[in-house]
């Protein structure tokens, strides 16, 4: 086989990495290189340096160390039984690309993942070495996200957490049964134990010792995970139930939902579908309602008997339409909890309403200025100068929001 050049390797190994949705570079500790002894900074909030036409942001250099893999996961482009072209970066090549891209302000840092070669420990050790060279040899202070391999030695995970800002382990699919059938070499139990281990290590790194000294930071931007949506037949209720469990059990920063998307050289075991992008979007909206708006899984998924979210309208609007007895709400008196449930009000709008109504009673135009989406909210609220009258209970209210029916695309 002819030796591949850096550009060819980069093409193969970024193509292989694009099915990981996460590109976050936020939430880590603040660092700078103003003293001139290193390169890089983190500010707490991430920066998206470019956007691809798939609408996804490019914040990190997201690559695989290698796309050789000994596992045979049906949904994955890199599975052992696929005929895609294979390549492998040397650690020096990954370091070079990261630093040169960073110096030109293309990226916030590195998101390194890998196919599993030889053994989980050998692969993980190589990944940790790359992070170590970046941090220690080059004093790199940008963001590093390492995808860890659940079966790897806990000592390697510990080292990974010392060099990386974020650690992630993918649960891959919403249910254990789906993992068993599509990723037979992976163990859902092992994945959960690895996430539990990361949480315990992170918590231990936050405790001061009896002398008041703080141990070194462990993965300051926390851990996240990803599950593929639409490859198996799990309902949205199952998926959101699983997310709730993961958030509460392992203190995840994010659960990413990745619509199952066509891959080159797919397996006959898992026919390709049009990626369910709308479903992915509704799941993210529901995820936000669960985490920031005080909704429960049951409330969000109660609307439809099949346990799936309404694809035509957002889950908050769907809940409000199904629970109209709570509305219209008088914005000048309603509690924070109820204001958060008004379609068209975000958490920032609600905060603005609460601070402003201490001064005076609110009118329709005030809400417009505060960023409320009154096109949605108007049917559900009353104000000093606004009443929806019969609109709240009108039979065609849903039709006002749902997109008009259109002919299905053949694709």
């Amino acid at each position, binding site marked *: 086989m002819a030796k591949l050049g850096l*550009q060819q390797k*980069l*093409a*193969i190994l*970024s*193509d292989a990495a*694009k*099915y990981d949705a996460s590109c976050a570079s936020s939430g880590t500790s603040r660092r*700078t*290189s103003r003293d*001139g002894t*290193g390169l*890089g*900074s983190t*500010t707490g909030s991430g*920066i*998206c*340096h*470019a*956007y*691809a*036409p*798939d*609408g*996804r942001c*490019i914040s990190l*250099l997201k690559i695989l160390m290698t796309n050789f893999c*000994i596992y*045979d996961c049906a949904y994955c482009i890199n599975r*052992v*039984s*696929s*005929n895609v072209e294979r390549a492998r970066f040397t650690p020096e090549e990954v370091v070079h690309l990261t630093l*040169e*891209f960073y*110096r030109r*302000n293309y990226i916030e840092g590195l998101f390194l993942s890998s196919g599993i070669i030889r053994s989980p420990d050998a692969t993980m050790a190589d990944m940790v070495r790359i992070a170590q060279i970046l941090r220690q040899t080059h004093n790199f202070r940008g963001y590093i996200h390492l995808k860890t391999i659940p079966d790897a030695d806990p000592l390697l995970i510990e080292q990974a957490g010392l060099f990386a800002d974020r650690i992630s382990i993918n649960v891959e699919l919403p249910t254990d049964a789906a993992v068993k059938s599509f990723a037979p070499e992976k*163990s859902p*139990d092992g994945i959960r*134990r690895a*996430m*539990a*281990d990361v949480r315990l290590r992170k918590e231990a790194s936050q405790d001061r010792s009896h002398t008041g000294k703080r141990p070194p930071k462990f993965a300051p931007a926390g851990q996240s995970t990803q599950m593929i949506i639409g490859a198996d037949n799990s309902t949205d209720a199952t998926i959101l139930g699983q997310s709730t469990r993961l*958030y*509460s*059990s392992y203190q995840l920063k994010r659960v990413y939902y990745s619509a199952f998307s066509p*891959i080159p050289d797919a397996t*006959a075991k898992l026919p390709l579908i*049009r990626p369910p*992008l709308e479903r992915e979007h509704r799941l993210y909206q529901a995820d936000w309602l669960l*985490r920031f708006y005080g909704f429960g899984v049951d409330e969000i998924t109660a609307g439809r008997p099949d346990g799936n979210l309404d694809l035509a309208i957002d889950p908050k609007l769907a809940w409000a339409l199904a629970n109209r007895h709570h509305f219209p709400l008088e914005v000048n008196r309603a509690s924070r909890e109820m204001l958060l449930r008004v379609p068209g009000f975000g958490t920032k709008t609600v905060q603005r309403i609460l*601070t*402003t109504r201490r001064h*005076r009673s*609110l*009118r329709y135009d005030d*809400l417009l*200025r*505060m960023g409320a989406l009154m096109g949605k909210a108007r049917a559900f609220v009353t104000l000093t100068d606004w009443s929806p009258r019969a609109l709240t209970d009108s039979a065609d209210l849903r039709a006002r929001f749902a997109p008009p029916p259109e002919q299905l695309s053949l*694709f």
Partner: protein
Amino acid sequence: MPTIALPMLHTDRAFRDAARGLLGAGVPPDAVLWQFNGNGGDLFADPPATVAPTAVTVPRAFVDLMNRVVWHSDPQRFARLYALLWRLRVTPGLMTDRGDPALAHLMRLDKDVRRDKHKMTAFVRFRDIGESADGNTRRRFAAWFEPSHCITEPTAPFFANRFGDMDWMIQTPHLTAHFESGALRFSPGAPKPPLPEDATEDLWRTYYANIFNPARLKIKAMTAEMPKKYWKNLPEAELIPGLIANAESRARAMQAAAPTLPPLRSDRIIARLPGQATPDALNGCTRCPLFANATQAVPGEGPDRAALMIVGEQPGDHEDLAGRPFVGPAGQMFDRLAQEAGLARDAVYVTNAVKHFKFTPQGKRRIHQRPDRPEIEACKWWLDGEIAAVQPRLIVAMGATAAYSLTGNGKTMTARRGTIETRRDGTPVLLTFHPSFLLRQPDATRRAADTALLRGDLALAARWLAGTA
């Protein structure tokens, strides 16, 4: 009418000083003309006024707003800021009134500036311009950027913090920022300079083209965050039309392609994989539904032939994560009380009546739930196995769940605590409270009393084993 001329550089400081002076002198907003970088003044006005700044106290929120809005390109920004400042004298709460039209307008300008600054941090693209002739070994980079507002000065510190070990220059139409050997300075703006080609841009374009997934075209999502006005200075943007044009056919081709035969090596590799470690019997247990949500089953821990076995209710949050019993808050309390009661902690076998954690998720926490009878009975099989293997002389049942599993009687603990009942096989079972019952007790006096009772029961177990009770 006083005309205030504000400079292009350090506009924030100049505006703040001027506004302080005007406010101190009691000049109303409609009596001031603001001039920026030689524009916007009144041709027939008095010569630019200089006013001595006086100390003024304003809310922090206004200072933050002002320090960003001054960089906006709206010619009215200074007048609007001063008008708001004028009103703040008599209405100090104004900054929290998000419905106020004047404040809302300034907030919009503020948002424009913040967005433009953010986009500058995102879309500046440096090119390597080679080492300098003077022997300086720091690497040198340069960039051309066209912001919508005058944000080069307030955004430059971001680049200084980020690229501390290299020299760089960012040229914009209104201002140029230089960072040399750790020092930041500014010089006037210039038209777009010719920058040398940089081979790394080809690598970047390769990355951009390959990280794009043609099966999920969302052009609007892209242009919302990366508006076309920035494209002309982004090396990767020239690829966008081609990527969009070919996306659908690429996605179709992937779907239409017939599955191929796996490569020959694939079967060999799969055959060589170490068989997946089958979970141990306890972790593979599906006797009750609790296995489905827990991380792992938590077995008992202690010497093989311990004289004393302690049985708790079920693993808690911490035990579930660590896979070991009695390591959470209740376990730590047990350790302390056991020590105070004179029990040799490492001679004791500790376990739980139920081996999986039962909980309901609530936000970022898991709320403990009591196992119900079918679950306790399903798990009794494992506890019986542990008792048969360890053969303790005495078992301490902590809490009603353990008591039910060991004696078949699930009645409340208050009346039974401190007594010794007998298991079916004749092993004596000493009943006591569970430490988490004490941790949940809100009343301090009662908690102290109950803690003393639990400690006393553990001491009783120690005496019983020593043959003195």
